[in-house]
């Protein structure tokens, strides 16, 4: 009964006219930017974050969440239509989705993606409502050592999921943690690593880093290969899947949703792992497995439901523990802090309307997506084919003004330029920026928890291994790293990412 009354409270918060409007605006903007070539969810949220600062906290977070799953949905659309995944999680969708489009079944593929996403989103929202409260209760028992270990686990998981060399990714995490420490140390008041630049006293803003490494770096990289993009768009005829399609799609959606929801909860993973896992499992199980990669509907339904389910359930660790599981969630944590909410288990008890409002809004947002997007598909197609050289100056302008408006200082624009350069150089060296951004945000938190844990244990480092929950979390992280460095899996991992 508690659940129902909570969900009721959430719905009441989410369906106020203004919150509905912000949800719709978020979903619309998210889809719009997700469809545009060359902008993923992280860059999108970083760019639009400053706009939400003026809103009340609930509306801001509802809008940001809408932008997140909207842009993910937009990414799937471009995967199917133009073979360009808007973001990592929809890479798998290109495999069969684009093939379906080339066979003249673009409409069906898009409808499948929409239906899968909606179903998965609905289930995952229910899961979120069911599992968030007990998890938050568990989290209240967490001491500083548990939090520290949990962050280690999250960072290790993000390393495993990064493209390219494992060693480089671990280095990026450490580098991110270090850069996160720049600024005034809260305990001693000492300004660390600021080179006496007063603008660095508060540290470097995470939005600045995100926009630089994901927005600018991406533009520079795209300018390096302007002809890499195909802009041929297949015609869309019928949207409706046939009866046979439905029969093949439903079991795939169910499996994809289950896998995606489970994997989405893991810290560090988000929706990417789910989409990959769902696709490869579907390939093994399905009767039509042999035809995968040639335009099988199961190959669209499974990863699409998995990535949407994962996108929703990745809110669980963020909302209950305050630990972001991927760069997008890290930005959400940052947004909450700016709004004056400290993310963690207490959010649910202190601000029930906010907590349940966000959850309820996710379901509404998913509904908006399906209503908004299928009829408007023609418009999205046209947007998806906007030539890149018309687009990137606009992105630069929004990045520039957006970053400036954070603190009204042009120094942030310069720092963004520096991080853009760094981001580009690092991708050239096979060092992925995603784990770095996550670490950048966790850096100061980790130091704080380490300090407290050591204070409580009187300087005894074994505390991380003697407290059961902490030990479990650390061994999980270790296991993930060991598994990822096994030769057989290394090959699998490379294969999975090569399709990028």
């Amino acid at each position, binding site marked *: 009964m508690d659940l129902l009354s909570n969900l009721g409270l959430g719905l009441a918060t989410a369906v106020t006219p203004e919150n509905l409007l912000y949800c719709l605006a978020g979903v619309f903007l998210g889809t719009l930017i997700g469809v545009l070539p060359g902008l993923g969810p992280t860059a999108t949220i970083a760019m639009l974050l400053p706009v939400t600062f003026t809103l009340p906290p609930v509306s801001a977070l509802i809008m940001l969440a809408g932008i997140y799953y909207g842009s993910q949905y937009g990414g799937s659309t471009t995967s199917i239509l133009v073979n360009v995944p808007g973001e990592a999680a929809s890479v798998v969708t290109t495999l069969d989705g684009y093939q379906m489009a080339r066979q003249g079944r673009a409409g069906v593929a898009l409808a499948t993606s929409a239906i899968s996403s909606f179903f998965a989103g609905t289930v995952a929202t229910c899961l979120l409502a069911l599992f968030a409260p007990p998890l938050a209760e568990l989290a209240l028992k967490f001491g500083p050592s548990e939090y520290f270990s949990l962050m280690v686990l999250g960072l290790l998981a993000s390393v495993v999921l990064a493209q390219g060399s494992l060693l480089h990714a671990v280095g990026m995490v*450490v580098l991110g943690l270090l850069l996160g420490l720049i600024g005034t140390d809260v305990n001693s008041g000492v300004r660390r690593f600021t080179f006496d630049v007063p603008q660095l006293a508060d540290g470097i803003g995470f939005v600045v880093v995100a926009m630089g490494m994901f927005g600018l770096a991406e*533009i520079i990289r795209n*300018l*390096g290969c302007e002809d890499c993009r195909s802009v041929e768009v297949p015609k869309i005829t019928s949207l409706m899947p046939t009866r046979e399609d439905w029969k093949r799609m439903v079991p795939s959606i169910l499996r994809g949703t289950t896998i995606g929801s489970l994997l989405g909860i893991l810290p560090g993973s988000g929706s990417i792992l789910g989409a990959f896992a769902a696709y490869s499992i579907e390939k093994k199980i399905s009767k039509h497995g042999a035809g995968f990669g040639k335009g099988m509907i199961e190959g669209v339904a499974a990863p699409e439901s998995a990535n949407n389910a994962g996108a929703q359930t990745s809110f669980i660790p963020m909302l209950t523990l305050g630990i972001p599981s991927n760069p997008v969630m890290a930005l959400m944590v940052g947004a909450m802090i700016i709004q004056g909410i400290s993310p963690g288990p207490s959010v649910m008890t202190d601000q029930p309307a906010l907590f349940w409002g966000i959850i309820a809004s996710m379901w509404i947002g998913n509904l908006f997506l399906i209503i908004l997007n299928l009829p408007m598909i023609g418009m999205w197609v046209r947007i998806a084919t906007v030539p890149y050289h018309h687009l*990137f100056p606009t992105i630069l302008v929004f*990045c*520039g003004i957006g970053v*400036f408006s954070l603190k009204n200082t042009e120094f942030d624009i310069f720092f963004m330029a520096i991080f853009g350069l760094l981001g580009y150089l690092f991708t*050239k060296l096979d060092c992925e920026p995603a784990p770095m951004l996550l670490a950048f945000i966790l850096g100061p938190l980790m130091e704080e928890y380490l300090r407290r844990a050591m204070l409580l244990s009187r300087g005894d480092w074994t505390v991380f291994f003697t407290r059961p929950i902490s030990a479990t979390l650390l061994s999980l992280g270790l296991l993930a790293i060991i598994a990822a460095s096994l030769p057989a899996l290394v090959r699998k991992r490379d294969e999975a990412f090569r399709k990028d």
Partner: protein
Amino acid sequence: MALRNPKDFWTGIIYVAVGTLFIVIARDYTMGTALKMGPAYFPTILSVLLILIGCASLVRSFIKPGSPIGGLAIKGLLIVSVSIILFGLLLRSAGLIIALPLLVVGSAAASSRFTWRYSIVLAAGLTVFCWLVFLKGLGVPIPLLGPWFGR
């Protein structure tokens, strides 16, 4: 000993360099003990870790073969960074009306498909849009015409 993986090599160099830099700077701060950590404690641990990872990458670059780094998009890199920095410099002194079109037209020139006509139209449209949304609507303190114009 031949260099087999330039990506590993340069990543290693960067990691070792950054790690060393942070350690050297952190020597000015108090170290403290595990029980009572000073501001230098955590950064020093991280820097040592980073140096170790960098060394591992360096060693590996001579053992395991890898692919070459590939050409840098120098032109795009320069134009994008210069135009965005110029934008930052001009934003408050010259105002949006100068900084924004310069950023749009300047960066658009990085593309091989650049045309004057389209860039100018885009710059004009964006200036009006940003003026209405950011300056009027959201109240971002950027002047439309900066002090350079005696206002």
